[in-house]
């Protein structure tokens, strides 16, 4: 992993923090990457997460956390540059390519990701997943949306509610 020039640490060694997933897996990452999370940033600024301590994340499992960190590590250099005003078009295109690829995953993983991004307050990741889900919804009927996003089959009551709303806005379903 390439160390971003974050200004953290004086002799080239970036400060590292440890995050502990709900299933007790430890992840060691650069503080700069973990700080993309507003929630973690406060703890890290207070000097937490270093050494043997680690920051427990009881709401995030290891599969999700590793995916979240993949995003944070990729986006940390640009974020450290204050939204990267001096980023080249190539850098931006590369991040965009990464983002598109990154959310090209199963809806259940998307759900875990958006929940984690929400809990950890990682704004960029939250909007990235929200945008992906919005794109998956576009142009679909309510039933197709349910199938796409892995809903269970509607109960008779739910079906009745759906029908009532669809009747009220019949024009949107022609």
């Amino acid at each position: 992993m390439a160390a971003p020039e974050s200004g953290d640490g004086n002799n080239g060694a970036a400060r590292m923090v440890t995050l502990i997933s709900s299933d007790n897996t430890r992840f060691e990452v650069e503080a700069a990457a973990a700080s993309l999370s507003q929630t973690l940033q406060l703890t890290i600024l207070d000097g937490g997460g270093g050494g043997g301590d680690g920051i427990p994340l009881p709401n995030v499992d290891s599969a999700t956390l590793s995916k979240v960190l993949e995003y944070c590590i990729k986006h940390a250099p640009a974020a450290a540059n204050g939204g990267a005003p001096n980023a080249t078009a190539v850098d931006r295109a590369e991040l965009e390519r990464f983002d598109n690829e990154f959310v090209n995953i199963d809806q259940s993983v998307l759900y875990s990701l958006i929940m984690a991004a929400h809990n950890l307050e990682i704004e960029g990741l939250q909007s990235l997943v929200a945008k992906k889900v919005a794109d998956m919804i576009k142009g679909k009927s309510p039933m197709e949306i349910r199938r796409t996003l892995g809903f269970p089959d509607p109960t008779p009551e739910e079906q009745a509610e759906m029908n009532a709303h669809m009747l009220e806005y019949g024009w949107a379903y022609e």
Partner: protein
Amino acid sequence: MEIVAGGFSDAPQEILTDIFALLEFPDLVRVGSVCSSWNSAYTSICSFGQYKCSQAPCLIYTSESAGDHVAFLYSLVEKRSYKLTLPDLHIQRRYLIGSSHGWLVTADDRSEMHLVNPVTSEQISLPSVITIEQVTPILDEAGAICRYRFSRHTAEAIMGPSSTYSLSASRDHLFHKALLFYDTSAGSYFVM
């Protein structure tokens, strides 16, 4: 140890509103049918107008052949039109003098103005045309308003002779353009 289970069917409302805020308007209506929790998120986003992106404009039009109660909404995003039926409203006979924030400002065939929401069929009547200083009602023998006199004056000067128009023709002369503004501090709209 807490396990985050579930999926989009029981997503928290904040997550749903984040997603729905990115949808264009016909899609936004459709998510309201998906399930009751999605319906609540849809309803709250409609009431508070929390769209992140500004909605692409829709073209609205009526046609004589489709009848009095029908308006068509053409979505530029989807490049298709939707047929809206407004059972309580003779939308085709209205003049459309403005539109903002999803509301149409219309003038009916007595030249009275109403706000109309073409999607929900809501209608809000604006103060009567006779509350405009330059408009004086003319009554017939039975005491009903039959015409309006329109005086062409401003605070400074008289701009020309006054004219008299029938109830329905007044809207041709009175209204130029109406705009709707949202006052965030008051949480309400005003029309000018």
